[in-house]
């Protein structure tokens, strides 16, 4: 009888208690929120462009929407814009995204570029971005304003690399 009680108490302690802990953690997790899923392919359309002729902001999106591919790991982002040589890194906090391209780009984008944008959900459930691109440390270069639409089919996370 004592042996059975010992075995039972060991089982409760090492298996039962953790199982209760798992159930509690799953319950607690119902209140935890993750950032919006913005990974995938976007089409960026410029609304207004930069003011300095020859800078990349002055020509951005002149030939139509530019594909922007965002890879997301939670709040951490990396992105590639077609025609821009390097990869940006950034983050998403409360639906606001920031992406920074490093200082060395292919001409004419030779300086560091920053994108600030807000994620919004349209009435049809589609995600959109609206924000600005600016050349860092160049206040006279002005800003380019843009909107972007997420393309429904591409999901970077589950793609074969």
């Amino acid at each position, binding site marked *: 009888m004592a042996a059975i009680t010992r*075995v039972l108490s*060991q*089982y409760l302690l*090492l*298996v039962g208690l*953790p*199982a209760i*802990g*798992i159930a509690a*953690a*799953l319950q*607690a*997790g*119902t209140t*935890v*929120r*993750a*950032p*919006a*899923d*913005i*990974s995938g392919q976007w089409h960026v359309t410029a609304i207004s462009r930069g003011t300095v002729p020859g800078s990349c902001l002055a020509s951005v999106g002149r030939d139509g929407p530019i594909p922007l591919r965002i*890879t*997301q*790991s*939670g*709040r*951490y982002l*990396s992105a590639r814009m077609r025609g821009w040589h390097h990869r940006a*890194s950034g983050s998403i906090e409360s639906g606001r995204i920031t992406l920074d391209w490093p200082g060395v780009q292919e001409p004419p984008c030779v300086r560091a570029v920053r994108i600030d944008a807000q994620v919004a959900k349209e009435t049809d459930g589609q995600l959109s971005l609206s924000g600005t691109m600016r050349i860092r440390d160049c206040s006279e270069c002005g800003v380019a304003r843009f909107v972007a639409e997420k393309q429904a089919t591409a*999901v*970077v*996370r*589950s793609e*074969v*690399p």
Partner: protein
Amino acid sequence: MPELLSLLIALVVLVVAARLGGSAAERIGQPPVVGEMVVGIALGPSLLGWLWPAAAATLFPEDLLPHLFTLSQVGLLIFMFLVGLEFDHGQLRRLGHTAVLASHASITIPALFGCLAALYLYPRLSSDAVGFREFALFMAVAMSVTAFPVLARILRERRLQDTPLGTVTIACAAVDDVTAWCLLAGVVALVRVAHGGLPVALMVAGLAVYVGAMLVARRTVLPAILTTFQRRERLTDNLFAAVIALVLLSAWVTEWLGLHLLFGAFFAGVALPKSDLFVRALRERLEMVATVLLLPIFFAFTGLRTEIGLVQGREMWFYFGLILLLAVSGKLLGSTIAARMTGLSWRDATALGILMNTRGLMELVVLNIGLELGVISPALFSMMVLMALVTTFMTTPLVEVVYGRAQRRTGVVPTKQLTAVQPDFAP
């Protein structure tokens, strides 16, 4: 045609690199899987793609990747079938109290740690495309996995397989494997149902029919394979074809049901009636192609998905440290405390904990399923791959610390000699 030429060159590089990596690992007393994992990561964007992007793009062009993926899945099918085949039903019946408690504790405690990690990591490394429940359960399974084949090999190399510790460890790992795969099947089903797979009722009904059919086949049709083998005293081509057909059919059913094809391969191995000779004959036919050709493709494919560059900055490395700490402490504490409470000495109990902490290839299989489903993000995938590598790497030296002196006193057979006598199907 150029695609075929690219594939052949890529395969040559993968096979040679994996062999070199495996041999290098063995030279420093590590299981070959450690070297093969490192080589896989090195051929991906973390090293080759970073140092020499043009070479990486030439060696693994994008249009080649679907072919590599398919070949790697075939390799995994064979690997999972062999893992299932090694599973001994009798072992479950013979399990002592120590093995039952230790195996269950080595699942529930790491699973709890996985769920706790999920509470912290979900808002940081996941997105709202994945529900918390799916994410947490996946983390629980990923933390609970033990690499049964690698562990068995380490035990053999240290001549511990016939000791009480070896027997308990093998039993624990076998129970762990089956439980972890059942749990993972549940998580995969949850995710696929949530993302528009088969309706739940159809999936559950299909699964019930599948399990029922396997149980019936195990008692009626499948014993004929074993009796034919015993009568002919060899594995004929027809018998081999029947086994392969069973594995493929089982994999097809589980994939169609919205689970994963690997579950079908694993359960086909579990369900097949077996004898030592039959298992050995099948292993001899299958293991060489799987370990030398197909599994290196899987390692490379995993490496192509692993981007250590995504783990950047203090915060990310802190997350990795946290994952590693929880993974190691969950397995180590759970198994060690359970084994100690049931009467093993502190040394044996600690060794059991260390051995159960080996994750190896099994963890990579689980992680790749998670990434394919979109349950884990690319950065979290990379962190978990690193965790699998570190936990596999640390096993042999730690066992050496616990058992090294005692082994030397009792005269251990050198590793090379043991490997030659007792080949193992697992890398």
